[in-house]
């Protein structure tokens, strides 16, 4: 188990989901993919002027407001994403500048498919836990793309989640420990200059998502001496609405434990933000003293598992700072033609 020498926790968190939605039914109207893909309701689509940078900025601002922290005290702004607006030029510097963390700080982009955000969180825990920094921000944000007509088009959504890691004494939820599990598993990838990713179809399930998530979560619980019954809430990476439910059940959790963190039916798979948005939704509802398990998954492949316990500060800033339910409830449905425009799938000559 990993645990820093100095106790740390989440002193602030924030999330963001764009306003636009396209329903699975509307995508199916165009591509005739059949009933099997309709287990999602809809997914979030970024506006014409949104990208990973702008999504990360709003999530980061919400997290700083929750933390009630002077942004210049952040010693790092770390952003995990697979949809960076620039191939060369850190997205994190733009975010750091926009939230007021610059110039005496670190900033970097992290990559690990859908677990890039929790990879940044592990690093932030180590950075603060070592005493090198008092506060560090870890963000996961994505505007994922699926090839038109591909199964991924039903799920590839957009959103962001940001966490301020700081001393345990100021935390809304403190860390009990973490565990990471990584292998070289080529279940999903995108080569440079390719617009859309390639995925291994059935290979994405058992040897990839399930094995890694279960190994990380189980190892962490074993090391802490906990079983499923010790957790009030659990959050997993949500590539679709079936996988996180199946993995929760296989680990021995029941619906009451995973229900509040399951947002994929309404926002889609938000990639590097997926498990973070789930955690934010759970923290929005948690009472003090609740134990929460978070286990991400990133293709390629790996999982980061964390055990948190909420504190008396958990309700800090619940109003007026927007909650996940405010963003999920703010929705403007668009049709496939508008979606194609929003996602840059229209070429204008």
């Amino acid at each position: 188990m990993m645990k820093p020498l100095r106790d740390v926790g989440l002193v602030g968190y924030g999330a963001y989901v764009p306003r636009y939605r396209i329903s699975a039914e509307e995508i199916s109207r165009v591509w005739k993919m059949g009933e099997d893909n309709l287990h999602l309701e809809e997914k979030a689509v970024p506006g014409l002027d949104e990208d990973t940078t702008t999504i990360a900025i709003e999530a980061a601002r919400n997290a700083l407001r929750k933390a009630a922290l002077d942004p210049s005290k952040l010693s790092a702004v770390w952003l995990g994403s697979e949809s960076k607006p620039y191939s060369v030029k850190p997205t994190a510097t733009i975010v750091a500048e926009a939230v007021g963390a610059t110039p005496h700080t670190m900033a970097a982009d992290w990559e690990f498919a859908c677990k890039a955000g929790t990879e940044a969180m592990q690093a932030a825990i180590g950075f603060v836990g070592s005493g090198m920094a008092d506060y560090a921000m870890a963000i996961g944000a994505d505007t994922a793309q699926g090839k038109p007509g591909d199964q991924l088009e039903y799920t590839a959504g957009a959103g962001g989640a940001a966490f301020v890691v700081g001393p345990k004494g100021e935390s809304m939820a403190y860390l009990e420990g973490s565990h990471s599990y990584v292998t070289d598993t080529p279940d999903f990838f995108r080569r440079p200059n390719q617009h859309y990713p390639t995925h291994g179809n059935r290979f994405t399930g058992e040897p990839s998502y399930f094995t890694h998530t279960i190994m990380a979560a189980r190892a962490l619980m074993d090391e802490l001496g906990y079983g499923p019954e010790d957790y009030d809430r659990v959050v997993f990476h949500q590539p679709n609405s079936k996988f996180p439910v199946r993995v929760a059940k296989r680990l021995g959790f029941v619906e009451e434990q995973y229900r509040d963190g399951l947002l994929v039916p309404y926002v889609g798979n938000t990639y590097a933000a997926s498990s973070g948005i789930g955690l934010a939704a759970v923290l929005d509802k948690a009472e003090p003293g609740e134990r929460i398990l978070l286990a991400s998954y990133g293709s390629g492949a790996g999982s980061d598992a964390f055990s948190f316990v909420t504190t008396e500060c958990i309700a800090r800033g619940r109003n007026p700072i927007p909650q996940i339910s405010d963003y999920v409830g703010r929705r403007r449905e668009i049709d496939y033609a508008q979606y194609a425009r929003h996602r840059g799938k229209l070429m204008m000559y």
Partner: protein
Amino acid sequence: MSLAKHWRLQQQRYRLIGVQCEDCGAKLLPRRLVCPQCKSHNLQPYSFKGQGMVYSHTVVYDAPSGYDGYVPYPAALVRLDEGPLVATQLTDVDIDEPYIGMPVEMVTRRLREHGESGMIVYGYKFRPKLKD
């Protein structure tokens, strides 16, 4: 395209940083060197809260180059809570939704990009207030 010009405007565009007059208290955006109210030179940076309401609005159908990807879009003068009027785009809103007095808040969005290989310019826009 002037990279330096965009870079100089970042503070104002990303965080609505203007100035406050230390003598008469006036809050000014964009930043000035002399207070237009009391002629003082004693102006310090001030970060506007980003809250305001629509003062007047219109819809842009024929946009300047670099902005044409967003048409049609609503544009507005927004009266900030601290006083100044800001010319801005409205976002996350349908073109027939804005009204005079609509409560709005600042967000950071893409303003424009200089082609496929050029710089992406980010800055403030205003959207209907998400939560009271």
